[in-house]
């Protein structure tokens, strides 16, 4: 006996069949208001960073010692810093570096960490031992020192910041992904795939990875602010972005010396970091829900 198929109107049956993963995901994402606000903010920021020279009437590097630490006015919307440079303009220019430094190394360490974590957790044994001891070494070594060594030996430029941050960041991602993989490995659907003779690489790519994605999104949104702050630490120590170049981390670090005369110099770039992080968090939440088949209505 086969189950009675409930009679459905023809158009409903058509609709069932037409489901497409990509379209469903985009639709679910667009329904999430907060995620859309976050996306809009990030897009605005990117546009602002790219078109900064046309948007702002000020030069971010021009020193005007007679205009030091001015309060907010109609000319300087957020005031000026200790060299008389417009704070808002420097934030816009700083976004160029901070956004890239926030996103690119996070993506790199996420990619390396995911690969290492899944391999380590799924294959186990010797692979697991080697990868995890490597990760232990990375975590045990003072990360700031490690990043500084990289910057000193390779030189202070943007590419080397990426390398340094990815080197520091992959280990903790690998740890989290490994533990997820270990839990997934015991699930019956993995056993079903193995009983079938599904190749190990296929099991890892098609069964483990999609189930790790929600965790990766959370890790990614957490990694962005961390990377921005790391960049500021490196810049502050003189091995990151070099002044007069602007990055948000550097603006906060330099600006906090004038906290009492002109708080906006430090607080404005701090708020920029905060808002960006929030925006990415909203996007991440929206993405996570949109990618989860069981969250769709």
């Amino acid at each position, binding site marked *: *006996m*086969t*189950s009675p198929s409930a009679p459905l109107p023809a158009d409903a*049956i058509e609709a069932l069949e037409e489901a497409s993963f990509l379209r469903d995901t985009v639709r679910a994402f667009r329904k999430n208001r907060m995620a859309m606000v976050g996306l809009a903010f990030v897009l605005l920021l990117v546009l602002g960073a790219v078109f900064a020279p046309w948007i702002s009437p000020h030069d971010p590097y021009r020193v005007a010692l007679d205009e030091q630490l001015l309060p907010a006015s109609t000319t300087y919307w957020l005031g000026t810093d200790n060299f008389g440079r417009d704070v808002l303009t420097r934030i816009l220019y700083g976004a160029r570096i901070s956004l890239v430094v926030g996103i690119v190394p996070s993506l790199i360490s996420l990619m390396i960490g995911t690969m290492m974590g899944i391999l380590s957790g799924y294959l186990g044994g010797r692979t697991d031992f080697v990868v995890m001891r490597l990760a232990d070494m990375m975590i045990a070594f003072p990360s700031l020192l490690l990043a500084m060594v990289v910057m000193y030996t390779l030189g202070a430029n943007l590419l080397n910041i990426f390398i340094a941050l990815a080197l520091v960041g992959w280990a903790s991602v690998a740890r989290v992904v490994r533990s997820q993989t270990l839990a997934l490995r015991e699930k019956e659907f993995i056993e*079903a*795939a193995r*009983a079938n003779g599904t190749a190990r690489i296929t099991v890892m790519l098609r069964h483990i990875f999609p189930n790790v994605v929600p965790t990766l999104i959370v890790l990614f949104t957490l990694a962005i602010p961390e990377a921005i702050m790391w960049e500021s630490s490196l810049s502050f120590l003189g091995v990151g972005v070099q002044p007069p170049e602007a990055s948000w981390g550097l603006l906060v670090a330099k600006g906090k010396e004038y906290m009492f005369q002109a708080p906006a110099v430090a607080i404005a770039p701090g708020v920029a970091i905060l808002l960006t992080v929030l925006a990415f968090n909203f996007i991440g939440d929206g993405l996570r829900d949109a990618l989860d088949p069981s969250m769709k209505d």
Partner: protein
Amino acid sequence: MTAPLLDVRDLRVSFELRRAGDLPWTPPRLLHAVSGVDFTLAAGETLGIVGESGCGKSTLARALIQMVPATGKAIWRGETDLLSLSPREMLKYRADIQMVFQDPLASLNPRMTVGQIIAEPLRTHHRGLGSAEVKTKVKAMMDRVGLLPNQINRYPHEFSGGQCQRIGIARALIVEPRLLICDEPVSALDVSIQAQVINLLTDLQRDLDLAMIFIAHDLSVVKHISDRVMVLYLGRTMEVAASPDLYGAPQHPYTQALLSAVPIPDPAAEREKVVIPLGGDLPSPMNPPSGCVFRTRCPRAQARCGEEVPGLAGGDHATACHFPGPLEMAEIDRTPA
């Protein structure tokens, strides 16, 4: 007579156990999950395997497809010993032996569509197939197991338990196996849904000439579907017989105790029924009793049972017991507590 589809000889599975904090040179303790099980299975036949939880039913099934390491022989079609194959050689046979799992939802990847799930064995074993062909086959199979082919793009969580088990069955049958191993396929389902799934399985078995190994702890489910039934206790066979013989005239005291525990859906008959109580717990498989493993709970145990391991004797209705035969009322009262 042609060779049976599967001929299992002296199958043994043991696991090495290390306690946390054991020194590296301490020898691991052995847990004997399956100790010397023999059976044969003809094409199209159903063998039911019953026993308490922890008796090695599932381990036995997993050993056959090299999911757990085992020793002994499992001869496929009189030619190949499945247990001696390398993983690469085994791959060929995985299409012939498919498995249906206990938890319908957990055995389906939550992030794959039904179509992708059912098609996966095809993608492993028939790489040449184009995606249009795969889709046609998947839809035909969905129809065959009683699912709407139009639901091909839905996700597992959108289906009920019974429907999920149908998806699991479709995934197993899409590569046209000769043997289907069902590991408690209905124990997670409602009784009414159980009947539907079992009827589906028997229909499919008849149409596709499938052999089945049907594992369950529910004796009435096994009775309905099996040609022969094997009773396991602590990794050893206690009794094997054709289903009507085993249910009609159980010889082993353990089988009798199991059968007496099955409720009868008639209050009057249920009150009249004599239940054989089994005292104590299942002994640890790390330290099984000497001689007959069942003797610690057997109402008929005698000195000989502790000294000599009873062999499986009796031809078509085989029993591993020194003193087989129906229990008397007087013996039942003597059951060790």
